[in-house]
């Protein structure tokens, strides 16, 4: 089949071809979606190398066992694959030592004027630590909902919860973060 045809095929067609050992179809799927799954993995692990390894593992799992994709049980490839990536990220975090929040990040106050860029950077650093300290489901909800191009409904499907439950998780996560980040808000 001509290479120019691959981008015209939708994900489900490509997956069907992958199940028939279609390496070109696999290549097309990888090129199409690597970036978005990498972004999600990075939000969890905060490390380029680890995020890349996780995305690679997820795609190779699909390549090695294409039968794990069951079209009759899943509506959309990306929703299903986000779940795989999230699970790999959570597995990776469980293997790592538990999160320890250090207090080495100085909190700015009115007495000492700091460079705005530095405050922003500190705030972001602190935010990442606080997100890592959230309960697993709240963290997942937050990471998915702020992922570009993923609607709340899709995020709820990835997590296997109802939309209301997802919104509740987000609200609880935000309440915790607002409290813990009050010096930066």
């Amino acid at each position: 089949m001509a290479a120019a045809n691959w981008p015209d095929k939708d994900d489900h067609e490509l997956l069907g071809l992958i199940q028939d050992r279609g390496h070109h179809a696999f290549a097309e799927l990888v090129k199409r979606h690597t970036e978005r799954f990498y972004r999600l993995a990075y939000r969890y692990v905060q490390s380029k190398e680890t995020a890349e390894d996780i995305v690679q593992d997820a795609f190779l799992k699909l390549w090695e066992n294409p039968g794990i994709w069951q079209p009759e049980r899943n509506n959309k490839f990306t929703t299903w694959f986000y779940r795989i990536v999230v699970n790999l990220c959570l597995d990776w975090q469980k293997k790592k030592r538990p999160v320890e929040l250090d207090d080495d990040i100085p909190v700015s106050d009115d007495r000492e004027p700091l460079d705005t860029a530095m405050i922003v950077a500190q705030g972001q650093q602190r935010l990442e630590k606080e997100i890592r300290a959230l309960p697993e489901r709240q963290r997942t909800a937050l990471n998915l909902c702020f992922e570009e191009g993923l609607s709340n409904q899709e995020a709820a499907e990835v997590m296997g919860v109802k939309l209301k439950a997802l919104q509740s998780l987000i609200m609880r996560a935000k309440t915790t973060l607002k409290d813990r980040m009050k010096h930066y808000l």
Partner: protein
Amino acid sequence: MGITDDEKLEGMLKSRHIEPASPDLASRIILRASEIPQNQPLSLWQWMRQLFADFLPKPAYILASVLILGLVIGFSTATDTTPTDDSNPINIQGFLYPDEGPL
């Protein structure tokens, strides 16, 4: 009206730093996949063939399996044929003390 804490937090969450992926990430994954064979789902017949191919050349496994199978069948048979009727205790006494009359 100023920006609320909610909006500020939202802004921070939207602007979380993400280090860009390596430009060759997709190519690396594709290359790695080309080195790995695919596991196709096996039909029942293929599965049976593989099972026999794996196990038949190993006499130790066969011997152990036969032994376990024999024990299982033996135990289940023994359970079925063991007399469990102990409703007549006199018979048992007569058996234990054949020379003595009943008390």
